């Protein structure tokens, strides 16, 4: 009995030792890689921040209008944001390399998927950013135009434009990432087509008189008093 127990314990310890010998070196290597990556990330962040502060990057971005494009509220500071992004990029690269040190099928597949997906993620982010900027720009333009032209409900109109552009951006991003393509596309067709049909029906059936009165009013304003707004300039 004691002999059997001794054998089982001896076998378990041998197994443990075998597993440890198998996975300990890669584990130590992974820890070392993470440490190096962490140090490199800190160093890169410090150097980058110093460099951007030296060349007054934020001032240049404000002057050129790029800041206003990305962050109209003015909260984002490139001299802080870019080094932070660099820090995390190096850290994530270090984590991936560390994971790859185990050299198993699972870890290799994980790293592969992440590496191939990463550029697509960046591009999708860029599409969303561009769409966000475009929606803000068009919305502001529509707002100012509607106010100057005395169009009713200018803010709602501007909001509608913003929502529409963002919706199209999200659909385009999902299509690019191959994420629920069918769902987003169908939603887009349904919403836009439905809105167009609804607007046509509403205008045709319910607002004929209002539209006619509005157009008559505008035309008489322009020919009578409205003309005076322009002629004397």
């Amino acid at each position, binding site marked *: 009995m004691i002999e059997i127990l001794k054998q089982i314990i001896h076998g378990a310890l041998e197994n443990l030792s075998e597993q440890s010998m198998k996975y300990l070196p890669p584990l130590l290597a992974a820890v070392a890689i993470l440490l190096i990556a962490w140090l490199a990330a800190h160093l890169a962040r410090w150097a980058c921040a110093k460099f951007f502060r030296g060349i007054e990057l934020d001032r240049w971005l*404000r*002057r*050129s*209008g790029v800041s*206003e494009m990305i962050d*109209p509220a003015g909260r984002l500071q490139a001299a802080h944001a870019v080094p932070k992004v660099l820090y995390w990029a190096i850290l994530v690269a270090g984590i991936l390399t560390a994971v790859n040190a185990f050299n198993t099928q699972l870890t290799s597949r994980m790293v592969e998927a992440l590496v191939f997906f990463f550029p697509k993620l960046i591009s999708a982010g860029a599409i969303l950013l561009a769409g966000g900027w475009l929606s803000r*720009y068009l919305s*502001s*333009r529509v*707002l*100012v*135009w509607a*106010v*100057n032209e*005395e169009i009713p409900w*200018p*803010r709602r109109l501007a909001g509608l434009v913003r929502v529409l552009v963002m919706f199209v951006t999200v659909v385009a991003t999902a299509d690019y990432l191959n994420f629920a393509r069918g769902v987003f596309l169908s939603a887009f067709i349904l919403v836009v087509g439905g809105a167009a049909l609804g607007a046509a029906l509403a205008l045709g059936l319910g607002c004929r008189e209002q539209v006619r009165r509005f157009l008559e009013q505008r035309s008489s*304003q*322009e*020919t009578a*008093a*409205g*003309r*005076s*707004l*322009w*002629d*004397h*300039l």
Partner: protein
Amino acid sequence: MSQNLLSQEALAAVRSIKEAEIVIGIPSFQNVRTVEHVVRAAHAGLAKHFAHYSSVIINSDGGSSDGTREAVLSAQVDETRLLLLSHPLFPINRLSLPYHGIPGKGSAFRLIFEMARQLGAKACVVVDADLRSITPDWIDLLIRPVLYAGYDFVAPYYHRHKWDGTITNSIVYPLTRALYGLRVRQPIGGDFGLSGRLVERYLQKNDWESDVARYGIDIWMTTVAIAEGFRVCQSFLGAKLHDAKDPAADLSAMLEQVVGSVFLLMERYETVWRKDAGSKDIDLFGFRFDVGLDPIEVNVDRMLKLFRGACCELGEIWGKALQPSTMGEVSQLGACTGNEVFRFEDQLWVRVIYDFASSYHRRTLERGLLLRSLTPLYLARVASFVMETRNMYSAEVEDRLEHVCLCYEQWKPYLEANWRGDPLPDASVTRRQVEESVPAGEAASLIGGDEND
């Protein structure tokens, strides 16, 4: 490069004419109704006043399809009716040429200036093709200071209705005066006399492909002449009447173009306008006289309604363009419900313009958006001005405008600090200084009278 600007037709004309001491340029586009009168006035002016000079009238056309070019070439002048003291020594040549390049008045002028240079012109006059009030004497008044008094740039000086030319009166004239120190009353008049030297300078510039040369050619020409030290004067031409504007013409687009050009030129000539303070008069030629003018109706209620609506909707955008103190006062103005007591005071208006100029420079907002958002503020200012001057004569209104101009000059340190992004001078102190040195409204006494003076 200059040869490439001229088409084969233009080059052939230059070779044929060889030289012309005076060039009169008429840019046009779809002006068949009025261009004939302008050409006849130009021809008569040359025959009457510059009979001993070789000259050419050049129409630079933007592709008119209504027969404008044919009208230019077929316009007849019966010289026997002009009662000339001497007959012209040289034939008055006449050309109508299409211009190439970006559509707009700037490209039309570029062709005229290039032709003037190729022909060795000593003086060049440019006049609008839609003028109804041009007379042969205009040609004399715009050329004589160049040929006989050594001036390089002759600006027009018109007699206008007190409510006519409000962009000029509210923004362009006082701002240009405060910036560059010369009192050019009509900096965007459109009818100018130029020396060959100044034409040469214009052609050396690289702005012909830009928006400034497209939309802001008039203010560009005036600013280049003043800022680069050319001799500047003005001539009294009488009333300026031109073809009725399209009622659907976009005010916002006009403001964006004209005011945008002024702001862009401020960036170009920053070292010039930051040097000087105050302003001085320039020589005025011609004999001043009063003329009857068509009455102008202004719908003040509609302007104020637009402004009040904009205060609610555009507050966020204005907040980015205006300093907090300016924005506060504008918001208070927006809350004022009574039209009769509505007053957009001069000092506030000046600060609005200076804040917009600085925002334009620092790009706190997209530039087109910034300029278009100025429209409701501008309309509020015009409405206030109209209500204030309803019972004033023209001379009193000029005094009133003088006050506005002095406000622009006194607040210039505010503009300089704002432009650089430095701490601003104390607004209340500046306001007190301005009020002490420029008493508001005391120069203009309100006498009841016909507003259509």
